[in-house]
């Protein structure tokens, strides 16, 4: 256990995620044509792009759910697509993933959902789990009475919070969020953004967000990567990217200025 922790500390000061010339093809359609970027420890990075540019596909390739046609993905120093099943399993305990609609297990209560990672991946005695679950619920701002409810009884925002809780249960080094604010009203969306910021700052998380939400981008994201036509179109601080001379990027950011 200690050895692993030491290794973690060795690489956390540097790059936690490195995507190198990833190519994805489905039949004859090319989704990614050499996508490369890297993410440093502690960064909050947003990935944007118009619909169909393969943002979610890229995310699935990073977390080891879908094999890219070519290229490498190094996550926390491990090559995701060239390592043993055992290494991959150990790696999966070190990142959290929030799926778009939460993906809470519908047959378990909220508390049982959040307890799953503890039960399956740690050797904590059973008596230590409930108090921890209580803290976890409070960390994401869910009232204590939520714990006995089924996911279907929760509102969209609460479901996302509970799912975030499950993603954070094992205290991951890096958190992946797929469209965290989709389906939420603007007020809940901003509250959720704020929650992510508070947690990422306090827990020292690296956060990688796939999003469409300009509000999220402007409020919590330091650096943004734009995917377009299978390539990385831009990569830099939000302010710089917003000035970029590209029709899609211009339209994307002007939506916000038109509204305000």
């Amino acid at each position, binding site marked *: 256990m*200690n050895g692993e922790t030491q290794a973690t*500390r060795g690489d956390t000061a540097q790059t936690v995620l490195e995507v190198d010339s990833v190519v994805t093809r489905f039949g004859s359609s090319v989704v990614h044509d050499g996508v490369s970027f890297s993410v440093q420890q502690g960064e909050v990075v947003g990935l944007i792009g118009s619909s169909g540019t393969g943002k979610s596909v890229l995310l699935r390739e990073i977390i080891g759910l879908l094999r890219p046609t070519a290229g490498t993905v190094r996550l926390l120093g491990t090559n995701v697509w060239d390592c043993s099943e055992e290494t991959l399993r150990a790696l999966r305990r070190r990142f959290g993933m929030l799926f778009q609609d939460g993906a809470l297990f519908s047959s378990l209560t909220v*508390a049982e959902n959040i307890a799953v990672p503890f039960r399956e991946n740690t050797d904590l005695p059973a008596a*230590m789990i*409930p108090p921890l679950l209580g803290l976890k619920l409070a960390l994401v701002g869910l009232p204590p009475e939520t714990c006995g409810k089924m996911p279907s009884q929760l509102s969209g925002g609460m479901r996302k919070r509970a799912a975030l809780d499950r993603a954070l249960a094992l205290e991951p080094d890096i958190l992946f969020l797929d469209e965290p604010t989709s389906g939420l009203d603007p007020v809940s969306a901003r509250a959720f953004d704020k929650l992510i910021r508070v947690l990422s700052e306090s827990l020292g998380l690296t956060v990688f967000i796939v999003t469409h939400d300009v509000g999220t981008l402007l409020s919590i994201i330091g650096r943004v990567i734009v995917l377009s036509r299978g390539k990385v179109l831009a990569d830099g601080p939000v302010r710089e990217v917003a000035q970029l001379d590209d029709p899609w990027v211009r339209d994307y950011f002007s939506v916000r200025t038109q509204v305000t």
Partner: protein
Amino acid sequence: MAIGLQTVTRMSHETQWLTHAVEAGKNILFLAGPWRLANLVPISNAIHALRIDAGRELMLDGSRLEELDSAACFAIYCYLVSLGYNEKTIGVRRFQDKHLRLLGLVHERMKSPPARGKAVRLGLVQRVGASAINICHLLKVHNAFIGALAMDTWRLLRKPSLFRGKETVSQFETICLDAIPIVALITVLIGVVFAYLLGLQAQKFGASIFVVDGVGLAICRELSPILVAIVVAGRSGASFTAQIGTMKMAHEIDAISTLGLSPIHVLVIPRLVAIQVALPLLVFVGDLMGLLGGMLAADWQLGITHVMFLERLQSVLPMSAPVAGILKAPVFAAFIAVIACHMGMNVQHDARSVGLNTTSTVVQGIVWVILLDAAFAVMFPWEI
């Protein structure tokens, strides 16, 4: 300046998680090493091995701390609070900024009660009661659905152009044509088994030829309708519920209503009509295959030739037996379709509910088929 430094932790590997010292009348706790969830068990042991004089002020020292996460942070705070310390009496020093933020966050949120959230388990009596209430509720909503179905059917009769012919034919294909192989296989086997077992008895009395009477009557009047209805309830009933339930979950049924269409016209009536036509035809297939099975078994076992079998069958099997069997089929079909479609419409917005409702459809379908069959046997005994 450390006075009376005492080591109270148990050594875990080479890490000493927690060291207690008393400086200038204050308890000082030095946290050391990676305080992470993965090490929570040794950390928690170290915490509970502490012997602190709770009367003194307390200071946490983070100078030797390498990492900290919320679970470990929670463990030490919980212990200190149980000793009677609170935010005013716990001091912190020499922590990294990010660890200070974490300490602050955990301290602010830690008052929440433990979350167990076990699903409630009912006792025996409660379960029986809950099931009874569920069944009553189910019957009630089935009735309401039949009412809605009747109203929509009435609208359809007045305006037949609303009827969806293509959808009905396509449903008929999956319910009837695609089911023929499985129905044929099951009934032929039952025909063989039934004739064989009956033959064993009949042989003892030298009454082999009566096997034909028994097989003909049993297959046509009871076995074929029941078996075919059960196969269709399992096969098509389950698929109705799963299809409609998935559409309900994806809000497709709401979309149908919003477009000014009736979900009953679009989804339920084509299935209902298709299954009502399909089931009698399948029962007829079942009759033929069951008799074929009986004929083969009678030939092998009792030496009754095919010609003798058919001649005897013609003279002893009243036409009313297969007709009664086939006439039962549309009634079974109506129950299966109404239950299956309603259970599909009844799905809640979670994935589990589709599975539960599909199971429930099959169970209800089979129970109703057998109940109805019993009722028919009592109500119309005169066909024999």
